[in-house]
């Protein structure tokens, strides 16, 4: 009996959390119109969410592209198909690695920072303070961060893919001697704008949405103690990573399965 009650408690509390998360999302969306009137708030958040993530994204993108160039070359040269290296590098970056790795890095770099920031604001009663001054803390604090994440993520993913393609070019063409014309022309003939690039952008928008939502919800919903904030930050990274990888499977099945 006791076990059954515990199971029920877990079920109810997770459903409650899910409900609170959606209420928070709806509340955040209701603040979008007010945000348009004050774009400086948004710019400040894009600065902390997007600009500060740029360095890690570009460096990771460069090295991921270079590794793809190396690995792809060794495998493709066994079939005498080194010329298709460009296709392999670009397709794997644009379709999968670009959105997914960017989102994972984004969750680690920006998501955890957002959770810790919001959680600490809650622990130090800054959010309650805002409410006392009749300022809606969700509209004032959370909405700009949410929109900033939503805007930054596709741009970061595009940056990652583009730098990765250049990194693959550097290793494949520069070091391993793949023909430069073949690298680009094969890529251009096989990579489709709609099939590959648009779908990659859609993926990254979805991941940006989910990552930022999880980060903000965990921050807003945390227990306002130092331990609670630290737990919420951990949960942000874990939940974001799981959500990204599961959603990636679903999206890939929907987009590329015929």
């Amino acid at each position, binding site marked *: 009996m006791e076990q059954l009650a515990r199971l029920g408690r877990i079920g109810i509390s997770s459903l409650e959390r899910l409900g609170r998360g959606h209420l928070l999302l709806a509340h955040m969306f209701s603040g979008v119109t007010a945000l348009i009137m004050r774009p*400086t708030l948004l710019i400040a958040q894009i*600065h902390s969410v*997007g*600009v500060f993530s740029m360095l890690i994204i570009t460096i990771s993108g460069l090295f991921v592209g270079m590794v793809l160039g190396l690995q792809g070359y060794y495998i493709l040269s066994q079939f005498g198909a080194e010329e298709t290296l460009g296709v392999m590098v670009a397709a794997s970056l644009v379709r999968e690695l670009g959105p997914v790795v960017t989102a994972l890095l984004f969750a680690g770099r920006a998501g955890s920072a957002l959770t810790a920031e919001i959680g600490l604001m809650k622990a130090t009663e800054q959010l309650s303070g805002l409410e006392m001054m009749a300022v809606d803390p969700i509209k004032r604090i959370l909405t700009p961060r949410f929109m900033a994440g939503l805007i930054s993520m596709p*741009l970061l993913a595009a940056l990652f893919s583009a*730098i990765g393609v250049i990194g693959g070019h550097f290793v494949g063409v520069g070091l391993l001697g793949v023909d430069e014309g073949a690298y680009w022309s094969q890529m*251009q003939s096989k*990579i489709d704008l709609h099939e590959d690039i648009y779908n990659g952008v859609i993926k990254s928008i979805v991941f940006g949405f989910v990552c930022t939502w999880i980060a903000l919800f965990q921050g807003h919903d945390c227990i306002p103690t130092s331990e609670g904030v630290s737990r919420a930050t951990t949960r942000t990274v874990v939940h974001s990573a799981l959500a990204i990888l599961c959603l990636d499977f679903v999206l890939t099945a929907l987009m590329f399965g015929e």
Partner: protein
Amino acid sequence: MVQMRTMEIMVGAFMAAGFVALFFLAMQVSNLSNLTEGDGYHITARFDNIGGLKVRSPVAMAGVRIGRVTKISFDNTTYEAIVTMLVDNSHNTIPDDTFAKIYTAGLLGEQYIGLDPGGSEEFLTEGGKISLTQSALVLEEIIGQFLFSKAEEGGSNE
């Protein structure tokens, strides 16, 4: 105030970099530059078997790409495949007795339509039909024929 200004500049640089990356992916990596090849005219050809030909497969003449396949349909009465292709307007002097054949690029590469020009003075125009065609080579059929002829050879030697 100065701080605000540098922040705005950095955000602007970030967004510009993101859009440049998207533009780079669209123009340099994908086939957008091949898509915008301008207007053309449609011609159709009937094949007994198109093998692995797909929509957007290239149409080439003397190995040079002059258009692409836009539609593939099936004729229910003659059991033939009808391939519609879009040829660039700049190549408007293709004789109407041109021979269309489905080739494979490399041993395992993609299939494309190769056009061999005929000697006619009349040129193909919008809606023109190519009547001389040759089907795609299906690897299994060739191997089957090869084995069959080998077996016949062996039989006649005895």
